[in-house]
């Protein structure tokens, strides 16, 4: 907030009006016509497929609308009232946040550990390891989800075979078929699938820590832990905020894996908000597009709030980095 007040007088808000205004607006637009030609594809595509949908969702959320091409009736805030009354909406709300609260710290932490290990100056085959840990990231989530249904199969899936063969369990666990384990299993797979991204973030961050500094401290007698505590960690702090926020943003979008691994089941125990919206919009016998839009708007507002927190966090991190 303070930044904007200090910035305003310097740029001279009055200048464009009273200062040298050599050519008129129309002439300026004509002179810059090529610029607008270059922007045209983005303006049209982005307008149609990102801006318009964001705005339209708000309008649709006020309609009673049972399928694409069928008539729309204005019902005011009725859909919102219905969404808020639906216990399954709150259920999916809870699951979405639980998923985020568990997977974000785990992903950030494992990513850091992996990055620090791979950054170890004397570790051989670093590039091969990096490739191995990143591999799941590039594979198609929807296909991994289907494959994982088989990997976690209670009778013949490799995970349960290993558990039974090693004598840890008498019989297999129905990881995805039981509502007490399904969500945790997906969380595990999600972390396995995406932690490579966080690892790359941390590796990029670690590259900004000068190795001389660490070595100098070591020469002075500091152990690895002390070096980490007093040198590496403070330098990584600003990145911690940014990486955590990027990871939050990514971990709120888990539709592909959820739909293909569990479909939201069993008994809605893994139905995150995106799957909830999808179910009402596309898989019920009578689509409730207005109702689904209302849920989507609430989801969007939620993401916006997360985004605002993100902005504040990044600012704080920048300030901190400036101090350090």
């Amino acid at each position: 907030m303070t930044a904007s007040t200090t910035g305003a007088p310097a740029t001279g808000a009055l200048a464009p009006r009273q200062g040298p205004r050599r050519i008129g607006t129309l002439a300026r637009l004509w002179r810059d016509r090529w610029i607008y030609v270059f922007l045209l594809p983005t303006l049209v595509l982005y307008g149609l497929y990102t801006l318009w949908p964001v705005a339209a969702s708000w309008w649709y959320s006020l309609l009673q609308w049972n399928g694409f091409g069928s008539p729309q009736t204005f019902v005011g805030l009725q859909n919102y009232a219905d969404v808020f009354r639906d216990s399954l909406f709150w259920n999916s709300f809870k699951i979405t946040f639980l998923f985020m609260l568990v997977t974000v710290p785990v992903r950030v932490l494992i990513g850091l550990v992996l990055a620090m290990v791979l950054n170890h100056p004397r570790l051989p085959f670093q590039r091969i390891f990096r490739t191995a840990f990143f591999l799941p990231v590039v594979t198609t989530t929807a296909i991994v989800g289907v494959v994982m249904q088989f990997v976690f199969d209670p009778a013949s899936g490799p995970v349960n075979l290993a558990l039974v063969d090693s004598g840890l369990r008498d019989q297999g666990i129905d990881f995805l078929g039981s509502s007490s384990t399904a969500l945790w299993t997906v969380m595990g797979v999600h972390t396995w699938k995406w932690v490579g991204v966080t690892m790359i973030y941390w590796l990029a961050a670690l590259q900004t820590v000068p190795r001389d500094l660490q070595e100098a401290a070591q020469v002075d007698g500091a152990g690895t832990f002390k070096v980490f505590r007093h040198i590496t960690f403070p330098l990584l702090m600003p990145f911690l905020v940014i990486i955590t926020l990027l990871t939050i943003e990514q971990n709120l979008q888990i539709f592909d894996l959820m739909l293909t691994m569990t479909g939201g089941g069993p008994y809605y125990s893994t139905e995150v908000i995106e799957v909830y919206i999808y179910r009402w919009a596309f898989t019920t016998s009578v689509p409730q597009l207005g109702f689904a839009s209302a849920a989507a708007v609430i989801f969007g507002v939620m993401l916006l709030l997360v985004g605002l927190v993100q902005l504040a966090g990044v600012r704080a991190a920048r300030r901190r980095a400036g101090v350090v």
Partner: protein
Amino acid sequence: MSTVSAPSRRWRVGRRSDVARRDVSLRRRVPVWVLTLVVTLVALAWVYPFAWMVSASLKDQLEVFSAGLDLIPKVAQWENYRRAWSDAGFGTYMVNTIIVTLGTVVIVVVRCAMAGYVLARYKFIGHKTMLLVLVGTLFVPAGYTIIPVVEITQRLGLLNSLTGMVIALSGGGQVASILLYLGYFRGIPRELEEAAIIDGAGFFTVFFRVMLPLAGPVTATVVVLTFLNTWNAFLLPLVFTFSRPDLRTLSVGMQAFLGQNSVDWSGMAAAATISIVPIVLLFLFLQRYFFDGIAGAIKS
């Protein structure tokens, strides 16, 4: 002083059994080979699901269940691949996915490079607004916009077509790509353009003959990331092909395959392998651009 012996412990946090952790004080430093061994084991576990998948794709339909954890099939059953490719339609899905991915990559590169260029180089009416709107919608998720996207595509008469899919995939989002180009073009010295203009080059020529070729590294990153996102896209292709199974992409086809043949594990594994191999190969050959693209989010 006790902290001096602690360092060795931190390389193994969460990765070692308690037994190993207890005798840590005996050693001052973890030998590199121990670290290497641990990382190797973890890395092998990491890629195990893919090894299992490829192995299952070569076993016969009974062997998948009976052979247990054995990864090597008795006799490689290439017939699984034939079944997935022609009977289950993955040949068609592959062609659809390639068309959609290439189409999207071309449109995204051209439109994002052009937008990034003018936003980086020129001040014009609407410049600030446009930047603000782009950054403001950086994180709009697909799940939020899917209903209006389907509606508008239907109104344009493109719903059940690959063209519609390409346009929708290349239209939504992609803000990050624009910002990548913007940052890069900002760093190129103006003299280059001025020299070209003196030589009589127009706006269009300057961009396509001088600036775009200079932006090779960014283009590579954008191509690779867009390729990845489009190849792996799921929600939009799923919703766009409800009434046209012949237009499914690989990711959607897999879901349908499961619905029809839930007992054909080896066929499923073959289909999954077919779908994943192209993107994995691309990654193995162009790793640098993948990592650059991902790390770019941190550096900016």
